[in-house]
C-alpha cells in the first residue's frame, strides 16, 4: 500500500506540467530588417544634445516593432542586440553595453505592460459589447463566501485587508483561512462557505503554518483536518515576477495550482512582499497590476496590504486611501477591511472596520487574540457601528487627555497655565504629543464640568484647577462629557 502522506511530501524531480510555447521566430539571433531600418531613421544619441532622450525613444520605438515578433521573455535581449548592432554605432560617443541593456530591459517592460493593457481593454470592450445588461431579469444573488465580512468573488476585484505592520492582519488572515477551510464561522459570528483555501506566503510559511495550526486548535479542531483543504505555499517573489506574463492572463503556475487544488479562496500574504521583485514604485498605478491579475483569477482573492506609512494615523482607522500604493490598488478593492490598534498599550487588541463593502458594511468590532496552550483563540471585545467606535475613540482620548491636564495643573501649585503650555505636557496614548483638537476638547469639557477656571490675560487665556476638580484617576468620558467615575 502506498503511503500517500509520505508521497505527498516527496519533492518532484521533474517539471511535469506543460510549458506555454514561446513565439518562435527571430528570437535574438539576428536583428530583423524592419528594426534596422527603423533605427537607421531615428536621430542618433549625441552627448550634450539630448542623448538620453534619443536613446529612450529609439528603444521604445524598436520595442513596438520587435514586440510582436519575439516572445516577451526574449524581447529585452532582442532589443539590446538591435540597439547594439543598429543604433549604437551612430551614437557619439557610443553607449556602454550596460546602459543599452538597461534601456532595452525598461523598454521591453513598458511594451509588455502596454500590450497587457491593450489586451485587457480589448477583452473588456468585447465583454461589454457581448453581454449587454438585461434589466428585465431578476438580479442575480451575490455568491457570498462570508456575508458578514462582505467577502465574495467578483470579476477583476479583490478583497483587501489593510493595516499597519503588526496591527493584526496576519492573525486575521490565518484565522479566516482556517475558518474557510473548516467551514467554521469567522470570529465565531460570521458564517462562511466551506471551500479549499490557497495561502500564498511571501514572508515565510513556517511561521504562518505555526500560526494557522494555533488558530485551528483554538477553533477546537485538529490541524490534520486542514489536509487538502488549506494549501499553504511558501512562495518566492521572484517566481511570481517571472511568471507575471506567462500564459494568456499571466501567472500560469498559479492558475494551475488553483485548478489542481480546487482553490476557491486565495490569500496573499502580503501584497507588498509579493511585489518585491517587480521593481515597481508602490505609489505608481503599476503597483496595482498584480492585484488586477489576482482579481482576474475568478476566485476570492484576499490580499494583505500594508497601510501607507505616512498616511496611517496612529490609533485611527486606516482609510482606503491609506492602503499602500496608489489609488489604483484601492480602486480594485471590492471589499476592504481595516485592521488597526485602537489602543497603543494593548498590542493584542485589533479593531476590524469596513473600509469598503459590496453591500452593507459590517459594524466595527474589537478582537483580542489570546494565545494559550490550547491554541490561538479570540475574544470579541466590543462591537458597534463605525460611528460608535469613532465616538468611543474620541471619548477615550478626551478622558486620557483630561487626566493628564488635571495632573499637570495640580503639579503647578495653583498657577494657571496657558493652553499651549498644557498642550506641551499632554501626551497621547503611546507617548506621542497630544493632538491639538483633543487637548482643546478636553479643556472645554473640563470647563463645562466646572473643573477648570479661565482667566483672560494680556498674553491670552490661562487655565487653573477649581475646587471641584476630581482626582485624575476618577475621570471618565462619555459622549464627549466628562464624568467622575
Amino acid at each position, binding site marked *: *500500500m*502506498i*503511503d*500517500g*502522506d509520505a*508521497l*505527498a*511530501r*516527496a*519533492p*518532484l*524531480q*521533474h*517539471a*511535469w*506540467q*506543460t*510549458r*506555454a510555447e514561446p513565439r518562435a521566430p527571430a528570437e535574438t539571433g539576428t536583428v530583423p530588417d524592419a528594426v534596422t531600418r527603423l533605427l537607421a531613421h531615428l536621430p542618433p544619441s549625441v552627448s550634450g544634445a539630448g542623448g538620453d532622450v534619443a536613446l529612450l525613444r529609439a528603444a521604445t520605438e524598436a520595442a513596438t516593432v520587435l514586440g510582436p515578433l519575439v516572445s516577451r*521573455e526574449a524581447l529585452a535581449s532582442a532589443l539590446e542586440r538591435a540597439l547594439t548592432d543598429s543604433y549604437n554605432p551612430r551614437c557619439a560617443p557610443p553607449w556602454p553595453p550596460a546602459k543599452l541593456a538597461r534601456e532595452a530591459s525598461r523598454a521591453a517592460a513598458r511594451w509588455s505592460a502596454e500590450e497587457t493593457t491593450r489586451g485587457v481593454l480589448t477583452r473588456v470592450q468585447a465583454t461589454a459589447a457581448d453581454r449587454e445588461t438585461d434589466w428585465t431579469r431578476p438580479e442575480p444573488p451575490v455568491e457570498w463566501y462570508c456575508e458578514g465580512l462582505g467577502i465574495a468573488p467578483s470579476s477583476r476585484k479583490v478583497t483587501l485587508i489593510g493595516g499597519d505592520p503588526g496591527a493584526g492582519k496576519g492573525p486575521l488572515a490565518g484565522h479566516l483561512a482556517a475558518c474557510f477551510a473548516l467551514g467554521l464561522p469567522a470570529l465565531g459570528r460570521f458564517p462562511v462557505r466551506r471551500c*479549499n483555501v490557497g495561502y500564498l506566503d511571501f514572508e515565510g*510559511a513556517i511561521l504562518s*503554518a505555526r500560526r494557522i*495550526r494555533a488558530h485551528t486548535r483554538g477553533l477546537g479542531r485538529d*490541524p*490534520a*483536518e*486542514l*489536509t*487538502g*483543504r*488549506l*494549501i*499553504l*505555499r*511558501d512562495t*518566492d517573489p521572484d*517566481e511570481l515576477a*517571472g*511568471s507575471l*506574463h*506567462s500564459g494568456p492572463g499571466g501567472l*500560469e*503556475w498559479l492558475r*494551475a*495550482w488553483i*485548478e*489542481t*487544488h*480546487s482553490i476557491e479562496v486565495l490569500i496573499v500574504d502580503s501584497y507588498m512582499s509579493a511585489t518585491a521583485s517587480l521593481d515597481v514604485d508602490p505609489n505608481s498605478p503599476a503597483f496595482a497590476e498584480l492585484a488586477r491579475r489576482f482579481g482576474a483569477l475568478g476566485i476570492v482573492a484576499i490580499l494583505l496590504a500594508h497601510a501607507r506609512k505616512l498616511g496611517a494615523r496612529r490609533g485611527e482607522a486606516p482609510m482606503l486611501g491609506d492602503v499602500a500604493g496608489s489609488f489604483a490598488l484601492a480602486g480594485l478593492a471590492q471589499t476592504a477591511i481595516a485592521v488597526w490598534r485602537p489602543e497603543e498599550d494593548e498590542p493584542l487588541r485589533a479593531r476590524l472596520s469596513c473600509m469598503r463593502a459590496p453591500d452593507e458594511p459590517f459594524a466595527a468590532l474589537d478582537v483580542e487574540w489570546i494565545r494559550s496552550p490550547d491554541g490561538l483563540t479570540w475574544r470579541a471585545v466590543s462591537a458597534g457601528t463605525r460611528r460608535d467606535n469613532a465616538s468611543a475613540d474620541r471619548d477615550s482620548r478626551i478622558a486620557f487627555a483630561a487626566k493628564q491636564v488635571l495632573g499637570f495643573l495640580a503639579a503647578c501649585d495653583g498657577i494657571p497655565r496657558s493652553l499651549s503650555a498644557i498642550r506641551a505636557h499632554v501626551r497621547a496614548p503611546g507617548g506621542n504629543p497630544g493632538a491639538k483638537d483633543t487637548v482643546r476638547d478636553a479643556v472645554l469639557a473640563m470647563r463645562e464640568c466646572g473643573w477648570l477656571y479661565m482667566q483672560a490675560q494680556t498674553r491670552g487665556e490661562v487655565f487653573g484647577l477649581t475646587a471641584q476638580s476630581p482626582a485624575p484617576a476618577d475621570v471618565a468620558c462619555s459622549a464627549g462629557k466628562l464624568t467622575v467615575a
Partner: protein
Amino acid sequence: MTPRGQGLRTISFGGIVPAKPPMIELSLYANAFARTPAQIIVTEWRDLAADIGQLLELRAAEKTALPALAPHALRDGATRSLAGVDRVTALMIDVDTVPGNDLGALLDRILPPAIVYASPSDAPERRRVRVLAPLRRPVSPMVSAHLRCAYAESLGLAPGCGVEGALDCAHLFFVGALDGTPAREWWVVD
C-alpha cells in the same frame, strides 16, 4: 516563466494512518460520456485484481464506448468533475510511453501491491499501460496530481510518458479491448 509545480513547497498538516488498510473504492463509469458512476466498486485488494480481469474482457467498437475506471469517490449528488471528487482512493497513472518500450523493466520497478493492465490502444510496438496502486488511506483530490507525479517518478518515469495527460483526479481510465484486437494483458504485482 516558472514551470508549474516546480519549487512547490506544500506544508502537510499530517494525519492519522489507520492500522488496517481500508477497502479499495473505485468508481466504474459506463463510458466516456457518463457523468455519474454506473457502479461503485468497494472491495478488498485481492478481489479487485479479479474484477479488473473481468472488466478487461469487455469489448467495444470505440474506446469511448468502453467502461472506464476512476480511482475516486464523488461527493453526494456530484457529477464527474474535479470539484465533484470527494476523495482519491488509489493512485492510477497512464503510461502511454514505456521507457525503451521495455514493459518488463517497468514491471520490475513497481512495488507491490499494484495492478498493471494494458490500455485499449496498447500495441506491441508501443506499449501503453495503466498502473493502479492502492493508497493506505484515501487522500484529498488536492494532492492527487502531485502524488501521481511522485509515484510516476518512483517508477523511473519522466514527463512525456503520458502521465501528465491524466493528472486530473476526475480523469477516466478506459478498461477493456477494442473489437478486433487481442485480449488485453494484465499483471498483478503482489
